[in-house]
């Protein structure tokens, strides 16, 4: 009897194992994403007729674009988004009063026209007729007002509220640190409501939006093109699970069709979109692949149509006979630079900083550690943007001059050699391929001056905390433009006490120039002021500028009519997927 029990148990286990093996026989044809489910544009929007007329018999029957979103978007609530994955999706399914064109110039989108008051402080937008959300509701002026106020509302804790500091009444609402004023944020609901009522956005009627600024900010149209200023229905965003696909209300050329969390996101044309040409694509499938190597493999296997080339493959794909012709290098409005600690250690001395700067051959650094992609940067404002100064380079690569500056610095600091300062902490974040760059620079400086470094690689958030605390003498840094205007690249990073000022650079004259430039209504004079400010800052060498970002992508040859801009979130042309067409292949 006992033996039988044991036998039964064993047989039972084996039986369970045997039967539970639901055979997963793989079918031979790896079907890429569910292409069959694509929703054909039923009531095609008025504009799409024009788009498809432009070409063609050359178009593929299936207008499906497959891309990788890399990550699950943290949120698709337009007022709360800050992540490039969220923004890439939001740029397709939500649009605002104005938007960018392929040259990153501001053009009307939901507004058919706008007036700027003589003092440049009041912007009046007139909405187009017949605008509707994807659910058929009309898009009203008060929806824009609601959305902007919601972004600014302290209770929303929106990360991008700071771009609204130029709106009148923002100092009473957004608080002293956010807007660099003296008024603290209101705490009670009553105070907040009062401040919101006085906030400078209003809708005098259903088709007019008025924005009141507290200073003539010529770049404010750029801010209104951002995702935080799109119209949002109060009844929608306050309903439960508003951002799930079945409840999502879209205002842009596309609408959210499916969002399988952590797995896949699908957008399809929005039949109610009338503000501009509609998409030729009938579906965009976005996977969430996390790992760059997996994304590259997916692209090579044909599961993706566009991909960002992983750092490890930069050279390989360029030299590959098949992939090489598919490589597209695109400049991004981003910059890599390293902070000097301007208040602590030997880097507080300006000659020391200049010496270090002149000892680095930036082109060689890019070729060695960045796979040759990227343009040398000697200042902050990126190419293609107002305020870009290509000739501003006070401290070019020059070892002899560098040594002279180092000698001056050492004399002033009472040391005979850089090694006398001990091991200088050189901080960077791990897991992002910075090791080579840090090693290159440390090695250069050791060779040139005998400096000793303690290369400190830390986990991301630990690194951020330590950098903020001023623990490092030199630390890795980077910046990506929020909008293509010099104010975004200079204020806040180089102004005294600026939120993103990690070098702790503080020059009151610079701050004054920035404030003056921001208020200057004449564009030519404004650019001149920003140039002056940047020249002053670069002359002080608070950081060493290294590289303007150039990202390398591979794009299948049948993906046509995309317009890459330096402001793209993740892929070329992802500011307007509605232009993309898939050719026959």
């Amino acid at each position, binding site marked *: 009897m006992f033996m039988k029990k*044991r036998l039964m*148990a*064993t047989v039972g286990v084996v039986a369970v*194992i045997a039967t*539970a*093996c639901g055979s*997963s*026989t*793989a079918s031979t044809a*790896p*079907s*890429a*994403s569910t292409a069959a489910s694509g929703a054909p544009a039923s009531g095609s929007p008025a504009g799409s007729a024009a788009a498809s007329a432009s070409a063609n018999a050359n178009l593929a029957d299936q207008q499906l674009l497959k891309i990788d979103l890399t990550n*699950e978007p*943290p*949120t698709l*609530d337009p007022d*709360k988004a800050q992540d490039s994955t969220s923004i890439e999706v939001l740029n397709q399914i939500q649009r605002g009063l104005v938007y960018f064109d392929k040259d990153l110039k501001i053009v009307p989108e939901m507004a058919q026209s706008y007036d700027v008051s003589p003092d440049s402080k009041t912007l009046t937008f007139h909405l187009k007729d017949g605008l509707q959300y994807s659910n058929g509701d009309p898009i009203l002026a008060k929806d824009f007002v609601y959305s902007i106020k919601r972004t600014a509302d*302290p*209770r929303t*804790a929106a*990360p991008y*509220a*700071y771009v609204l500091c130029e709106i009148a009444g923002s100092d009473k609402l*957004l*608080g*002293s*640190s*956010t807007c660099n004023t003296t008024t603290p*944020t209101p705490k009670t609901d009553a105070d907040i409501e009062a401040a919101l009522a006085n906030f400078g956005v209003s809708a005098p009627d259903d088709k007019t939006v008025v924005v009141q600024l507290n200073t003539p900010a010529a770049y404010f149209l750029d801010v209104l093109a951002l995702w935080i200023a799109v119209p949002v229905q109060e009844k929608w965003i306050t309903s439960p*699970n*508003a951002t*799930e696909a079945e409840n999502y209300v879209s205002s842009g050329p596309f609408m959210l069709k499916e969002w*399988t*969390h*952590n*797995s896949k996101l699908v957008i399809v044309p929005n039949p109610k979109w009338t503000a501009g040409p509609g998409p030729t694509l009938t579906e965009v499938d976005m*996977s*969430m*692949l*996390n*790992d760059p190597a*997996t994304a590259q*493999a*997916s692209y*090579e*296997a*044909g*599961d993706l149509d566009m991909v960002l080339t992983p750092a490890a493959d930069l050279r390989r794909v360029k030299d590959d006979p098949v992939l090489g012709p598919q490589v597209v290098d695109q400049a991004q409005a981003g910059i890599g630079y390293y902070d000097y600690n301007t208040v602590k250690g030997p880097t507080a001395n300006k000659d020391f900083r200049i010496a270090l700067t002149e000892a680095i051959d930036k082109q060689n650094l890019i070729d060695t550690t960045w796979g040759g992609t990227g343009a040398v940067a000697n200042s902050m404002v990126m190419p293609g943007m107002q305020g870009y100064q290509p000739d501003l380079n006070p401290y070019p690569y020059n070892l002899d001059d560098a040594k002279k500056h180092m000698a001056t610095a050492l004399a002033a600091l009472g040391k005979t050699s850089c090694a006398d300062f001990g091991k200088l902490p050189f901080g960077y974040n791990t897991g992002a391929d910075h090791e080579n760059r840090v090693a290159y620079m440390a090695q250069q400086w050791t060779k040139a001056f005998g400096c000793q470094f303690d290369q400190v690689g830390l*986990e*991301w*958030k*630990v690194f*951020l905390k*330590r950098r*903020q605390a001023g623990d490092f003498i030199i630390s890795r840094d*980077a910046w990506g433009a*929020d909008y293509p205007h010099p104010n975004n690249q200079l204020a806040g990073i180089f102004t005294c006490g600026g*939120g*993103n000022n990690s070098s702790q650079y503080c020059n009151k004259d610079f701050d004054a120039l920035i404030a003056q430039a921001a208020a200057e209504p004449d564009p030519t004079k404004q650019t001149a002021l920003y140039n002056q400010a940047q020249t002053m800052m670069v002359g002080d060498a608070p950081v060493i500028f290294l590289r303007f970002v150039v990202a390398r992508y591979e794009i299948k040859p049948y993906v046509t009519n995309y317009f890459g801009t330096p402001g793209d979130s993740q892929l070329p042309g992802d500011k307007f997927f509605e232009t993309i067409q898939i050719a026959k292949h």
Partner: protein
Amino acid sequence: MKRYLVRRVLWIIPVLVAVSLITFFLMHAVPGGPWDQEKKLSPEVIARLNQIYGLDQPVYMQYLNWIGGILQGNLGPSYVFKDRTVNDIIAGGIPVTIQLGIQAFILAVLVGLPLGIVAALGHNRWPDYVATGLSVVWIATPSFVLAIILIIVFSVDLKWFPVAGWEGPQTWVLPTIALAAFPIAVIARYTRASMLEVTRKDYVRTAQSKGITGRAVVYRHMIRNALIPVVTIMGPILAFLVTGSFIVEHVFAVPGVGRYYLSAITTRDYPLLMATTLIYAFAVAVLNLVVDILYAYIDPRIRYS
């Protein structure tokens, strides 16, 4: 036996409490918080976020609040995925991770056991060399490397399977193989060693001298006894399947809980981190208990009191 079972089950609770305490306080001790990012948030926004999520309270208070939430079945909000609750995130990911784990386990047993038996029976001849060679390779290769190799060979070159994702049986194959490789090898090695040892036992020789045919000896006497040490290894194997799934899920973009576990640490998404840690602690504790019980059924010499 029943008393043993009850005692073991009850012990899980203090284990989980201890795990939660250690995790919670370690988590808060690590520098960096959920709101630290390259483009710094303004102090007002940070203060407001801390207030909304209760992070402005003392740590022990936050722990008690969290325990209070747990007791009501509420795992809290996610700091990163602001539109979803941790309950939703976990509920979405757990079935996928469990499915992947079970598939890998079944594959590991179905392939590992016979591989070990064949190796033992073909001892020091070619079946043994092949099986042992494969096992050594699979044990030594990290799952990440194996995953990439599988992708390159079967997805990119041969195009038999999609590269990544979790949509339909074709996408299940490669992640299951990648996850099962190490367990297959370990089970094979243990089975082989155990079978070889059993071959030398007296009862086997007795059976053979009684005239029982080779196959019957193997099935009726050898395998069941050889399984005992193998069942012992199932505990760590299951633990591996649970934790090894992090890497496999990451590489193959499988929407399970494993990916969240890693990302929650780097993003300091405290509630999600606590939930995933507890789930894994619970899974390991329960699986070990199951293995111990199974052990008792297979080997009558084992008696729990």
